[in-house]
């Protein structure tokens, strides 16, 4: 980074706070819109990039392309009706939304969730994390032009989706964690099939390891790119793998244990310097950790038992006035629901805090500057942003 800036002492001039001064009329800059329709953009957002040659001088993110107004819609839905709605907020891993909503309502209404349901939820969340990471890995390698790794990981992700389908009857939107518990336990023979799938994941990860991580070009592209120093973590609200790669051991599963995570044996994975390679590698380890956790859960999980708490009639379920914040560790970082109820049958307000909110806007705008335009897609992918959770 430092040597690159050496060439750019003179031009463009800088503001006192270090940002580049852009004069669009000087004809020395090109403005490029990356997205919303752009293969290198994850999800739907656009980057307004101002380039000088290939280098990004200034970056502005534009979101809102997938704004469906969930928070408004939930205000006119009964509590139970919010349940099918929330999973649509973050599509790659909808279950975290369901869990956060369910846990919020359970806390505010004072409902106790049965043990089997807690195990089941842990399993679903971990499976969800695995699928999301697998898909992301494909996107990350694809962003640097290596399609084949994504083919493998997406294939095993699809096998995981089959397992989801078996449990819940849903492929993408599982909708298996309603307030009160879960909608069912695992079907017969599930453990064996799950083990098979996990082995497929591990095999695919071995291939990915060889092709992507032991790859001279990939290393050349990613080492040193998009470095996040540890002191930026709190200043920019960085959470999840991005923060952990910077050496800050932030993991909601450990910090604010929920569900059955206290009973599982795992270490928070951290990295040394949060560049794109470290972040990618950290997520590779997270995938393997997830596989391990799923195995642990499968071993400890009860095969039968009560899985749903007694709910009041959901058609006119009222929750007393209160407010709370429930968080969970999703693949991208801290996912949380801040909920305010007013004693009526409808939530007063549910605010969804997605990790991408900080990663894709404030952090991305900072990191993109001085990057090559070729790296923007890879950089953005490495932050693992998902726009719909920004705008909801």
């Amino acid at each position, binding site marked *: 980074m430092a040597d690159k800036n050496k060439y750019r002492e003179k031009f463009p001039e800088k503001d006192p706070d270090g940002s580049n001064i852009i004069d669009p009329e000087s004809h020395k800059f090109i403005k490029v819109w990356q997205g919303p329709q752009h293969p290198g953009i994850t999800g739907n957002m656009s980057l307004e990039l101002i380039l000088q040659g290939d280098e990004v001088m200034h970056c502005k993110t534009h979101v809102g392309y997938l*704004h469906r107004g969930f928070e408004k819609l939930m205000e006119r839905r009964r509590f139970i009706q919010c349940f099918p709605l929330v999973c649509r907020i973050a599509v790659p891993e909808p279950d975290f939304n369901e869990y956060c909503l369910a846990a919020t309502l359970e*806390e505010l209404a004072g409902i106790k969730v049965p043990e089997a349901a807690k195990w089941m939820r842990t399993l679903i969340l971990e499976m969800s994390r695995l699928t999301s990471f697998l898909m992301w890995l494909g996107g990350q390698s694809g962003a640097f032009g290596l399609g084949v790794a994504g083919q493998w990981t997406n294939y095993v992700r699809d096998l995981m989706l089959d397992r989801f389908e078996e449990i819940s009857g849903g492929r993408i939107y599982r909708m298996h964690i309603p307030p009160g518990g879960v909608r069912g336990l695992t079907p017969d023979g599930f453990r064996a099939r799950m083990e098979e799938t996990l082995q497929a994941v591990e095999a695919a990860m071995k291939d990915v390891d060889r092709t992507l991580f032991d790859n001279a070009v990939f290393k050349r592209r990613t080492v040193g790119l998009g470095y996040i120093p540890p002191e930026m973590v709190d200043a920019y*609200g960085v959470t999840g793998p991005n923060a952990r790669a910077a050496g800050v051991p932030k993991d909601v599963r450990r910090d604010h244990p929920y569900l059955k995570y206290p009973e599982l044996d795992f270490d928070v994975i951290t990295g040394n310097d949060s560049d794109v390679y470290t972040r990618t590698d950290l997520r590779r380890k997270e995938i393997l950790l997830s596989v391990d956790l799923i195995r642990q859960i499968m071993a400890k999980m009860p095969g039968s038992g009560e899985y749903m708490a007694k709910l009041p009639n959901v058609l006119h379920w009222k929750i007393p006035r209160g407010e709370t914040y429930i968080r969970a560790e999703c693949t991208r970082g801290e996912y949380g629901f801040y909920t305010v109820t007013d004693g009526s049958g409808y939530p007063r307000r549910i605010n969804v805090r997605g990790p991408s*909110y900080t990663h894709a806007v404030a952090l991305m705008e900072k990191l993109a500057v001085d990057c090559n335009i070729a790296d923007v897609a890879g950089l953005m992918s490495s932050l693992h942003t998902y726009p719909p959770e920004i705008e909801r």
Partner: protein
Amino acid sequence: MMKALIERLEQKFRISEVVRQRNDELFMTAAKEEAVSLVTYLKEYEGFTHLVLLTAVDWLEAGRFQLTYLLNNNAVKADAGIRVYLDRERPEMESIHHLWKQAATYQRELKEMFGIGFPGSPRVDEPFILEGWRDIPPYRRDFDTKKYSEKTYFPRPGRKTYDPEEYMKKQLYPEE
């Protein structure tokens, strides 16, 4: 831990409505003019260095907005939520973008979705999520999204539903 914190805060600031939602979660209401200094104090001296979120709640009936700053202390694993009430007629609040970079984003969203002003916050007046919005800010309670949707988009015609109660009356005992 939380108890000591509340005591310390009560000495220094005017806080009220303190609710311990969980062992590691605390909500309190701060006076509007003290809120930013309270947030700064929590950040600088009490270790609440992570801004989890900043959002608003519309209490239409009471004629006020509630701003919630949710801070997290990763050392002791605890959250503190600070509520601030703003007048609904002229909602405006001091900006905290100097404390956290991402706060500017939150404030942009609040400006757009609730119409709460944050003078001095970067790009606060730029549209964030919406595009060419002309109605009242959509997250306000008095904005009716269903009506807006029916007016603006084209619900597919041809739907008709019957209420079982009325339908049975019509079928079984129409005269009464």
